[in-house]
Protein backbone atom coordinates (compact mmCIF):
# COMPACT_ATOMS: atom_id res chain seq x y z
CA UNK A 1 0.00 0.00 0.00
CA UNK A 2 1.36 3.38 -1.00
CA UNK A 3 -1.35 5.27 0.81
CA UNK A 4 -0.11 7.24 3.82
CA UNK A 5 -1.62 6.45 7.17
CA UNK A 6 -4.66 8.42 8.36
CA UNK A 7 -2.92 9.19 11.60
CA UNK A 8 0.80 9.49 10.87
CA UNK A 9 1.89 10.09 14.44
CA UNK A 10 -0.36 8.23 16.82
CA UNK A 11 0.17 8.34 20.58
CA UNK A 12 1.85 5.18 21.72
CA UNK A 13 1.23 3.74 25.17
CA UNK A 14 3.02 1.10 27.17
CA UNK A 15 2.00 -2.51 26.94
CA UNK A 16 0.38 -3.95 30.02
CA UNK A 17 1.91 -6.82 31.90
CA UNK A 18 1.05 -10.44 31.33
CA UNK A 19 -1.78 -11.80 33.39
CA UNK A 20 -0.68 -13.24 36.69
CA UNK A 21 -1.13 -16.97 36.95
CA UNK A 22 -3.08 -17.99 40.00
CA UNK A 23 -3.11 -21.32 41.79
CA UNK A 24 -6.77 -21.78 40.84
CA UNK A 25 -5.80 -21.64 37.14
CA UNK A 26 -4.20 -25.04 37.58
CA UNK A 27 -6.97 -26.48 39.71
CA UNK A 28 -9.28 -28.64 37.59
CA UNK A 29 -11.92 -28.47 40.30
CA UNK A 30 -12.38 -24.74 39.78
CA UNK A 31 -14.71 -23.77 36.94
CA UNK A 32 -12.89 -21.43 34.60
CA UNK A 33 -15.26 -18.78 33.33
CA UNK A 34 -14.37 -16.24 30.70
CA UNK A 35 -13.59 -12.86 32.20
CA UNK A 36 -12.76 -9.41 30.82
CA UNK A 37 -9.04 -9.98 31.23
CA UNK A 38 -9.18 -13.16 29.17
CA UNK A 39 -11.06 -11.42 26.34
CA UNK A 40 -8.57 -8.55 26.52
CA UNK A 41 -5.69 -11.00 26.16
CA UNK A 42 -7.31 -12.37 23.02
CA UNK A 43 -7.49 -8.99 21.31
CA UNK A 44 -4.76 -6.79 22.78
CA UNK A 45 -2.06 -8.14 20.46
CA UNK A 46 -4.06 -7.60 17.27
CA UNK A 47 -1.91 -5.46 14.97
CA UNK A 48 -3.03 -2.08 13.78
CA UNK A 49 -3.58 -2.17 9.98
CA UNK A 50 -1.37 0.91 9.48
CA UNK A 51 1.30 0.86 12.18
CA UNK A 52 3.63 -1.85 13.48
CA UNK A 53 1.90 -1.52 16.82
CA UNK A 54 -0.74 -3.48 18.68
CA UNK A 55 -4.26 -2.25 19.43
CA UNK A 56 -3.24 -2.17 23.10
CA UNK A 57 -0.26 0.10 22.42
CA UNK A 58 -2.51 2.52 20.55
CA UNK A 59 -5.17 2.23 23.27
CA UNK A 60 -7.70 1.19 20.67
CA UNK A 61 -8.70 -1.59 23.05
CA UNK A 62 -8.67 -1.46 26.83
CA UNK A 63 -9.73 -3.99 29.44
CA UNK A 64 -12.19 -1.49 30.90
CA UNK A 65 -14.06 -1.41 27.58
CA UNK A 66 -14.90 -5.10 27.69
CA UNK A 67 -17.94 -6.65 29.33
CA UNK A 68 -18.53 -10.38 29.69
CA UNK A 69 -21.68 -12.10 30.90
CA UNK A 70 -20.93 -15.82 31.05
CA UNK A 71 -24.45 -16.77 32.03
CA UNK A 72 -26.10 -14.88 29.19
CA UNK A 73 -23.26 -15.81 26.77
CA UNK A 74 -22.61 -12.18 25.94
CA UNK A 75 -19.31 -10.50 25.10
CA UNK A 76 -19.42 -6.77 24.47
CA UNK A 77 -16.33 -4.90 23.29
CA UNK A 78 -15.94 -1.25 22.39
CA UNK A 79 -12.86 0.07 20.66
CA UNK A 80 -11.53 3.59 20.26
CA UNK A 81 -10.16 4.65 16.86
CA UNK A 82 -6.98 6.75 17.22
CA UNK A 83 -8.61 9.63 15.34
CA UNK A 84 -12.33 10.44 14.78
CA UNK A 85 -12.24 9.98 11.01
CA UNK A 86 -10.08 6.87 10.89
CA UNK A 87 -10.91 5.07 7.64
CA UNK A 88 -9.71 1.81 9.17
CA UNK A 89 -12.37 1.70 11.91
CA UNK A 90 -14.49 -0.97 10.21
CA UNK A 91 -11.46 -3.12 9.45
CA UNK A 92 -10.23 -2.89 13.05
CA UNK A 93 -13.69 -3.80 14.36
CA UNK A 94 -13.88 -6.67 11.90
CA UNK A 95 -10.48 -7.98 13.04
CA UNK A 96 -11.65 -7.93 16.67
CA UNK A 97 -14.84 -9.75 15.69
CA UNK A 98 -13.04 -12.39 13.68
CA UNK A 99 -10.48 -12.97 16.44
CA UNK A 100 -13.23 -13.52 19.02
CA UNK A 101 -15.34 -15.55 16.59
CA UNK A 102 -12.47 -17.97 16.12
CA UNK A 103 -11.30 -18.09 19.74
CA UNK A 104 -14.52 -18.22 21.73
CA UNK A 105 -17.05 -21.06 21.97
CA UNK A 106 -19.90 -20.58 19.50
CA UNK A 107 -22.42 -20.04 22.34
CA UNK A 108 -21.14 -16.48 22.79
CA UNK A 109 -22.91 -13.55 21.12
CA UNK A 110 -20.17 -11.04 20.36
CA UNK A 111 -20.93 -7.36 19.87
CA UNK A 112 -18.15 -5.02 18.73
CA UNK A 113 -18.81 -1.30 18.63
CA UNK A 114 -16.94 1.99 18.41
CA UNK A 115 -16.67 3.67 21.84
CA UNK A 116 -19.35 6.31 22.08
CA UNK A 117 -18.38 9.67 20.61
CA UNK A 118 -15.00 8.62 19.22
CA UNK A 119 -15.73 8.37 15.50
CA UNK A 120 -17.55 10.58 12.99
CA UNK A 121 -19.35 7.65 11.37
CA UNK A 122 -19.89 5.78 14.61
CA UNK A 123 -23.44 4.65 13.81
CA UNK A 124 -22.66 3.52 10.29
CA UNK A 125 -19.61 1.55 11.45
CA UNK A 126 -21.58 -0.07 14.30
CA UNK A 127 -24.45 -1.01 12.00
CA UNK A 128 -22.09 -2.65 9.55
CA UNK A 129 -20.25 -4.55 12.29
CA UNK A 130 -23.56 -5.80 13.70
CA UNK A 131 -24.85 -7.11 10.36
CA UNK A 132 -23.83 -10.78 10.38
CA UNK A 133 -24.90 -11.28 6.78
CA UNK A 134 -22.56 -8.56 5.56
CA UNK A 135 -19.79 -9.91 7.81
CA UNK A 136 -20.33 -13.39 6.35
CA UNK A 137 -20.13 -11.96 2.83
CA UNK A 138 -17.01 -9.94 3.70
CA UNK A 139 -15.31 -13.04 5.09
CA UNK A 140 -15.75 -14.76 1.71
CA UNK A 141 -13.52 -12.09 0.20
CA UNK A 142 -10.06 -13.68 0.06
CA UNK A 143 -8.11 -10.39 -0.04
CA UNK A 144 -9.93 -9.03 2.96
CA UNK A 145 -9.48 -12.26 4.92
CA UNK A 146 -5.77 -12.11 4.17
CA UNK A 147 -5.53 -8.58 5.56
CA UNK A 148 -7.52 -9.57 8.65
CA UNK A 149 -5.33 -12.62 9.17
CA UNK A 150 -2.26 -10.39 9.07
CA UNK A 151 -3.81 -8.13 11.70
CA UNK A 152 -4.72 -10.94 14.04
CA UNK A 153 -1.59 -13.01 13.55
CA UNK A 154 0.15 -12.90 16.92
CA UNK A 155 3.75 -13.56 17.72
Amino acid at each position, binding site marked *: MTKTADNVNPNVYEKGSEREKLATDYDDEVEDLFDEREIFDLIRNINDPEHPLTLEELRVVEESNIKVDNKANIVYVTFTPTIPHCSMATLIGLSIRVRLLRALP*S*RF*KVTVEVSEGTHVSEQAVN*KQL*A*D*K*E*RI*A*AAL*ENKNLVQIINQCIATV
Partner: protein
Amino acid sequence: MSKLELVQTLTGHKGIVWNVSWHPQGKIFASCGEDKTIKLWSKEGQQWTIKTVLVDGHQRTIREVAWSPCGNYLASASFDATTAIWDKKSGQFECNAALEGHENEVKSVAWSPSGQLLATCGRDKSVWVWEVAGDDEYECESVLNAHHQDVKKVAWHPSLDILASASYDNSVKLYKEDPSDNDWSCIATLQSHESTVWSLTFDKTGERLATCSDDKTVKIWREYKPDNQEGVIVTDRESVWKCVCTLSGFHTRCIYDITWCHHTGLLATACGDDIIRIFKESETSDPNAPTFDLICTKLNAHTQDVNCVTWNPTGNKEMLSCSDDGEIKLWSYTE
Protein backbone atom coordinates in the same frame (compact mmCIF):
# COMPACT_ATOMS: atom_id res chain seq x y z
CA MET B 1 -51.33 -24.63 26.63
CA SER B 2 -49.60 -23.72 23.36
CA LYS B 3 -46.39 -25.49 22.65
CA LEU B 4 -43.86 -26.11 19.95
CA GLU B 5 -42.59 -29.66 20.01
CA LEU B 6 -39.43 -30.79 18.31
CA VAL B 7 -40.20 -33.51 15.75
CA GLN B 8 -36.73 -33.95 14.28
CA THR B 9 -33.30 -32.31 14.17
CA LEU B 10 -31.80 -32.48 10.69
CA THR B 11 -28.09 -32.22 10.11
CA GLY B 12 -26.13 -32.38 6.90
CA HIS B 13 -25.05 -28.83 6.09
CA LYS B 14 -21.60 -27.58 7.03
CA GLY B 15 -21.65 -24.16 8.67
CA ILE B 16 -24.49 -21.66 8.70
CA VAL B 17 -27.87 -22.76 7.32
CA TRP B 18 -29.39 -19.55 6.01
CA ASN B 19 -32.75 -20.63 4.66
CA VAL B 20 -35.32 -23.41 4.35
CA SER B 21 -38.24 -23.45 1.92
CA TRP B 22 -41.26 -25.76 1.78
CA HIS B 23 -42.38 -27.19 -1.54
CA PRO B 24 -45.97 -25.93 -2.15
CA GLN B 25 -47.39 -29.38 -1.37
CA GLY B 26 -45.54 -29.51 1.96
CA LYS B 27 -43.97 -32.93 1.43
CA ILE B 28 -40.52 -31.79 0.36
CA PHE B 29 -38.38 -28.87 1.44
CA ALA B 30 -35.13 -27.31 0.31
CA SER B 31 -32.35 -25.89 2.49
CA CYS B 32 -29.24 -23.85 1.70
CA GLY B 33 -26.31 -22.20 3.38
CA GLU B 34 -22.69 -21.32 3.74
CA ASP B 35 -21.53 -24.66 2.30
CA LYS B 36 -22.76 -23.62 -1.19
CA THR B 37 -25.09 -26.60 -1.48
CA ILE B 38 -28.84 -26.99 -1.70
CA LYS B 39 -30.31 -30.05 -0.03
CA LEU B 40 -33.74 -31.46 -0.81
CA TRP B 41 -35.42 -33.33 2.03
CA SER B 42 -38.41 -35.63 2.11
CA LYS B 43 -39.99 -38.08 4.51
CA GLU B 44 -39.06 -41.72 4.53
CA GLY B 45 -41.26 -43.54 7.03
CA GLN B 46 -41.24 -41.25 10.06
CA GLN B 47 -37.89 -39.64 9.31
CA TRP B 48 -36.97 -36.71 7.08
CA THR B 49 -33.85 -37.44 5.07
CA ILE B 50 -31.77 -35.84 2.35
CA LYS B 51 -33.01 -37.00 -1.06
CA THR B 52 -30.87 -34.86 -3.33
CA VAL B 53 -27.90 -32.54 -2.95
CA LEU B 54 -27.48 -29.81 -5.55
CA VAL B 55 -23.88 -28.74 -5.94
CA ASP B 56 -21.83 -26.61 -8.34
CA GLY B 57 -24.64 -24.15 -8.98
CA HIS B 58 -22.95 -21.39 -7.00
CA GLN B 59 -19.43 -20.27 -6.14
CA ARG B 60 -20.34 -18.67 -2.83
CA THR B 61 -22.89 -18.85 0.02
CA ILE B 62 -26.46 -19.62 -1.03
CA ARG B 63 -28.58 -17.18 0.91
CA GLU B 64 -32.12 -18.18 -0.03
CA VAL B 65 -34.12 -20.81 -1.93
CA ALA B 66 -37.69 -20.53 -3.24
CA TRP B 67 -40.05 -22.97 -4.97
CA SER B 68 -42.24 -21.79 -7.84
CA PRO B 69 -46.00 -21.98 -7.06
CA CYS B 70 -46.31 -25.03 -9.39
CA GLY B 71 -43.54 -26.76 -7.46
CA ASN B 72 -41.55 -27.63 -10.59
CA TYR B 73 -38.84 -25.00 -10.25
CA LEU B 74 -36.50 -24.02 -7.48
CA ALA B 75 -34.69 -20.67 -7.47
CA SER B 76 -31.55 -20.04 -5.42
CA ALA B 77 -30.01 -16.64 -4.58
CA SER B 78 -26.30 -16.50 -3.91
CA PHE B 79 -23.56 -14.17 -2.69
CA ASP B 80 -21.88 -14.96 -6.04
CA ALA B 81 -24.21 -12.34 -7.61
CA THR B 82 -26.33 -14.87 -9.51
CA THR B 83 -29.71 -16.54 -9.09
CA ALA B 84 -29.98 -20.10 -10.39
CA ILE B 85 -33.15 -21.84 -11.55
CA TRP B 86 -33.31 -25.60 -11.06
CA ASP B 87 -35.80 -28.09 -12.47
CA LYS B 88 -36.02 -31.82 -13.06
CA LYS B 89 -37.26 -31.94 -16.63
CA SER B 90 -34.44 -34.34 -17.41
CA GLY B 91 -35.46 -36.62 -14.55
CA GLN B 92 -33.14 -35.17 -11.94
CA PHE B 93 -32.60 -31.67 -10.63
CA GLU B 94 -30.35 -29.56 -12.82
CA CYS B 95 -29.54 -25.90 -13.05
CA ASN B 96 -30.97 -24.80 -16.41
CA ALA B 97 -30.84 -21.03 -16.11
CA ALA B 98 -28.74 -18.45 -14.30
CA LEU B 99 -29.99 -14.92 -13.81
CA GLU B 100 -27.14 -12.45 -13.93
CA GLY B 101 -27.13 -8.70 -13.49
CA HIS B 102 -26.72 -7.87 -9.83
CA GLU B 103 -23.37 -6.27 -9.07
CA ASN B 104 -22.71 -8.37 -5.97
CA GLU B 105 -24.45 -10.50 -3.32
CA VAL B 106 -28.03 -11.53 -4.12
CA LYS B 107 -29.87 -11.72 -0.80
CA SER B 108 -33.35 -12.93 -1.66
CA VAL B 109 -35.51 -14.42 -4.41
CA ALA B 110 -39.29 -14.86 -4.67
CA TRP B 111 -41.83 -16.11 -7.26
CA SER B 112 -45.06 -14.23 -7.93
CA PRO B 113 -48.32 -16.10 -7.22
CA SER B 114 -48.84 -16.80 -10.94
CA GLY B 115 -45.31 -18.16 -11.28
CA GLN B 116 -44.77 -15.84 -14.24
CA LEU B 117 -42.60 -13.32 -12.40
CA LEU B 118 -39.56 -13.59 -10.23
CA ALA B 119 -38.00 -10.94 -8.01
CA THR B 120 -34.43 -10.74 -6.70
CA CYS B 121 -32.64 -8.17 -4.55
CA GLY B 122 -29.18 -7.60 -3.21
CA ARG B 123 -26.42 -5.57 -1.70
CA ASP B 124 -26.23 -3.37 -4.80
CA LYS B 125 -29.41 -1.70 -3.41
CA SER B 126 -31.54 -2.82 -6.34
CA VAL B 127 -34.63 -4.99 -6.79
CA TRP B 128 -35.01 -6.80 -10.15
CA VAL B 129 -38.23 -8.12 -11.59
CA TRP B 130 -37.80 -10.98 -14.09
CA GLU B 131 -40.39 -12.42 -16.42
CA VAL B 132 -40.53 -16.09 -17.35
CA ALA B 133 -40.20 -15.68 -21.11
CA GLY B 134 -40.16 -19.30 -22.18
CA ASP B 135 -38.43 -22.56 -21.54
CA ASP B 136 -35.43 -21.70 -19.37
CA GLU B 137 -35.63 -18.10 -20.51
CA TYR B 138 -35.93 -15.19 -18.15
CA GLU B 139 -36.05 -11.55 -19.13
CA CYS B 140 -35.40 -8.60 -16.89
CA GLU B 141 -38.61 -6.53 -16.77
CA SER B 142 -37.41 -3.84 -14.44
CA VAL B 143 -34.56 -2.73 -12.18
CA LEU B 144 -35.91 -0.83 -9.20
CA ASN B 145 -33.52 1.49 -7.39
CA ALA B 146 -35.85 2.86 -4.75
CA HIS B 147 -33.79 1.77 -1.74
CA HIS B 148 -30.59 3.56 -0.84
CA GLN B 149 -28.97 0.63 0.98
CA ASP B 150 -28.55 -3.16 0.84
CA VAL B 151 -31.92 -4.86 0.11
CA LYS B 152 -32.44 -7.87 2.39
CA LYS B 153 -35.69 -9.48 1.34
CA VAL B 154 -38.32 -9.60 -1.40
CA ALA B 155 -41.80 -11.13 -1.06
CA TRP B 156 -44.90 -11.14 -3.29
CA HIS B 157 -48.49 -10.43 -2.35
CA PRO B 158 -50.35 -13.79 -2.02
CA SER B 159 -52.68 -13.19 -4.98
CA LEU B 160 -51.70 -10.01 -6.86
CA ASP B 161 -48.56 -8.96 -8.70
CA ILE B 162 -47.53 -6.61 -5.92
CA LEU B 163 -43.99 -6.89 -4.66
CA ALA B 164 -42.56 -5.89 -1.26
CA SER B 165 -38.91 -5.38 -0.31
CA ALA B 166 -37.12 -4.81 3.01
CA SER B 167 -33.81 -3.04 3.41
CA TYR B 168 -30.79 -2.03 5.50
CA ASP B 169 -32.08 1.53 4.95
CA ASN B 170 -34.78 0.71 7.60
CA SER B 171 -37.67 0.94 5.13
CA VAL B 172 -40.04 -1.39 3.32
CA LYS B 173 -41.19 -0.60 -0.22
CA LEU B 174 -44.04 -1.87 -2.37
CA TYR B 175 -44.04 -2.00 -6.16
CA LYS B 176 -46.40 -2.74 -8.98
CA GLU B 177 -46.55 -2.52 -12.73
CA ASP B 178 -48.14 0.52 -14.31
CA PRO B 179 -50.48 -0.91 -17.01
CA SER B 180 -50.11 2.23 -19.17
CA ASP B 181 -46.38 1.80 -19.87
CA ASN B 182 -45.65 -1.67 -18.45
CA ASP B 183 -43.03 -0.22 -16.18
CA TRP B 184 -42.65 -1.08 -12.55
CA SER B 185 -42.53 1.59 -9.90
CA CYS B 186 -42.51 2.06 -6.15
CA ILE B 187 -46.05 2.71 -4.94
CA ALA B 188 -45.46 2.93 -1.19
CA THR B 189 -42.66 3.38 1.33
CA LEU B 190 -43.26 2.01 4.80
CA GLN B 191 -41.19 3.88 7.33
CA SER B 192 -41.18 3.29 11.06
CA HIS B 193 -38.46 0.75 11.88
CA GLU B 194 -35.33 2.21 13.46
CA SER B 195 -32.84 -0.26 12.00
CA THR B 196 -32.43 -2.86 9.23
CA VAL B 197 -35.66 -4.59 8.18
CA TRP B 198 -34.66 -8.23 7.72
CA SER B 199 -37.84 -9.86 6.56
CA LEU B 200 -41.52 -9.45 5.82
CA THR B 201 -44.59 -11.61 5.34
CA PHE B 202 -48.10 -10.96 4.02
CA ASP B 203 -51.19 -12.35 5.72
CA LYS B 204 -53.51 -14.52 3.61
CA THR B 205 -55.58 -11.56 2.37
CA GLY B 206 -52.52 -9.57 1.32
CA GLU B 207 -54.05 -6.55 3.01
CA ARG B 208 -51.70 -6.77 5.95
CA LEU B 209 -47.96 -7.11 6.18
CA ALA B 210 -45.74 -8.04 9.14
CA THR B 211 -42.10 -6.90 9.21
CA CYS B 212 -39.22 -7.68 11.57
CA SER B 213 -36.10 -5.72 12.28
CA ASP B 214 -32.72 -5.30 13.92
CA ASP B 215 -34.54 -2.76 16.15
CA LYS B 216 -35.99 -5.85 17.96
CA THR B 217 -39.58 -5.07 17.01
CA VAL B 218 -42.23 -6.58 14.78
CA LYS B 219 -44.61 -4.22 13.02
CA ILE B 220 -48.00 -4.91 11.49
CA TRP B 221 -48.99 -2.74 8.54
CA ARG B 222 -52.46 -2.37 7.09
CA GLU B 223 -53.51 -1.33 3.63
CA TYR B 224 -56.01 1.52 3.30
CA LYS B 225 -57.50 1.55 -0.18
CA PRO B 226 -58.85 4.65 -1.92
CA ASP B 227 -62.17 5.79 -0.40
CA ASN B 228 -61.65 3.66 2.72
CA GLN B 229 -64.28 3.91 5.45
CA GLU B 230 -61.73 4.85 8.09
CA GLY B 231 -61.11 8.18 6.37
CA VAL B 232 -57.38 7.61 5.85
CA ILE B 233 -56.36 10.09 3.18
CA VAL B 234 -55.25 8.40 -0.02
CA THR B 235 -53.65 10.43 -2.78
CA ASP B 236 -52.63 9.26 -6.27
CA ARG B 237 -55.30 6.50 -6.11
CA GLU B 238 -52.67 4.21 -4.62
CA SER B 239 -53.34 2.50 -1.31
CA VAL B 240 -51.70 3.87 1.80
CA TRP B 241 -50.03 1.45 4.23
CA LYS B 242 -50.01 2.37 7.88
CA CYS B 243 -48.23 0.79 10.82
CA VAL B 244 -51.15 -0.25 13.04
CA CYS B 245 -49.27 -2.28 15.65
CA THR B 246 -45.71 -2.56 17.02
CA LEU B 247 -44.70 -5.61 19.04
CA SER B 248 -41.84 -4.37 21.20
CA GLY B 249 -40.23 -5.72 24.34
CA PHE B 250 -40.56 -9.37 23.29
CA HIS B 251 -37.27 -9.92 21.47
CA THR B 252 -33.84 -9.34 23.00
CA ARG B 253 -31.77 -9.30 19.79
CA CYS B 254 -32.12 -8.78 16.05
CA ILE B 255 -35.16 -10.54 14.48
CA TYR B 256 -34.02 -12.26 11.29
CA ASP B 257 -37.23 -13.72 9.94
CA ILE B 258 -40.99 -13.70 10.31
CA THR B 259 -43.68 -15.98 8.85
CA TRP B 260 -47.45 -15.56 8.81
CA CYS B 261 -49.42 -18.81 8.50
CA HIS B 262 -52.22 -18.41 5.94
CA HIS B 263 -54.29 -21.16 7.57
CA THR B 264 -54.01 -20.45 11.28
CA GLY B 265 -53.11 -16.75 11.20
CA LEU B 266 -50.23 -17.42 13.59
CA LEU B 267 -47.11 -15.27 13.33
CA ALA B 268 -43.72 -16.81 14.15
CA THR B 269 -40.34 -15.08 14.49
CA ALA B 270 -36.70 -16.20 14.23
CA CYS B 271 -34.43 -14.27 16.56
CA GLY B 272 -30.73 -13.72 17.24
CA ASP B 273 -31.37 -14.76 20.86
CA ASP B 274 -31.86 -18.39 19.68
CA ILE B 275 -35.59 -18.25 20.45
CA ILE B 276 -38.63 -18.96 18.27
CA ARG B 277 -41.72 -17.03 19.34
CA ILE B 278 -45.33 -17.40 18.21
CA PHE B 279 -47.90 -14.61 18.31
CA LYS B 280 -51.65 -14.81 17.92
CA GLU B 281 -54.04 -11.99 17.21
CA SER B 282 -56.43 -11.51 20.12
CA GLU B 283 -60.09 -12.21 19.50
CA THR B 284 -61.17 -8.72 20.45
CA SER B 285 -58.53 -7.15 18.19
CA ASP B 286 -59.54 -3.88 16.51
CA PRO B 287 -58.63 -3.98 12.79
CA ASN B 288 -57.28 -0.42 12.99
CA ALA B 289 -55.24 -1.07 16.13
CA PRO B 290 -54.81 -4.84 16.36
CA THR B 291 -53.35 -6.57 19.39
CA PHE B 292 -51.24 -9.69 19.30
CA ASP B 293 -50.40 -11.95 22.24
CA LEU B 294 -47.20 -13.91 22.66
CA ILE B 295 -48.56 -17.43 23.04
CA CYS B 296 -45.40 -19.52 22.76
CA THR B 297 -41.71 -18.95 23.53
CA LYS B 298 -39.36 -21.76 22.55
CA LEU B 299 -36.17 -21.03 24.50
CA ASN B 300 -32.94 -22.45 23.06
CA ALA B 301 -34.76 -23.51 19.89
CA HIS B 302 -31.24 -23.61 18.45
CA THR B 303 -27.82 -23.18 20.05
CA GLN B 304 -27.09 -20.11 17.90
CA ASP B 305 -29.06 -17.43 16.00
CA VAL B 306 -32.26 -18.62 14.32
CA ASN B 307 -32.12 -17.43 10.70
CA CYS B 308 -35.41 -18.56 9.24
CA VAL B 309 -38.83 -19.86 10.27
CA THR B 310 -41.49 -21.10 7.87
CA TRP B 311 -44.90 -22.76 8.33
CA ASN B 312 -45.81 -25.79 6.27
CA PRO B 313 -48.04 -24.40 3.46
CA THR B 314 -50.63 -27.16 3.93
CA GLY B 315 -51.59 -25.66 7.29
CA ASN B 316 -50.74 -28.79 9.33
CA LYS B 317 -48.98 -26.59 11.96
CA GLU B 318 -45.56 -27.95 11.15
CA MET B 319 -42.74 -25.44 11.15
CA LEU B 320 -39.17 -25.48 9.92
CA SER B 321 -36.34 -23.43 11.35
CA CYS B 322 -32.62 -23.21 10.63
CA SER B 323 -29.67 -21.68 12.36
CA ASP B 324 -26.04 -20.55 12.43
CA ASP B 325 -25.46 -23.77 14.41
CA GLY B 326 -25.74 -25.75 11.16
CA GLU B 327 -28.99 -27.46 12.09
CA ILE B 328 -32.49 -27.53 10.66
CA LYS B 329 -35.34 -28.35 13.02
CA LEU B 330 -38.84 -29.54 12.28
CA TRP B 331 -41.43 -28.50 14.88
CA SER B 332 -45.02 -29.31 15.51
CA TYR B 333 -47.28 -26.69 17.02
CA THR B 334 -50.17 -27.59 19.30
CA GLU B 335 -52.68 -25.18 20.76
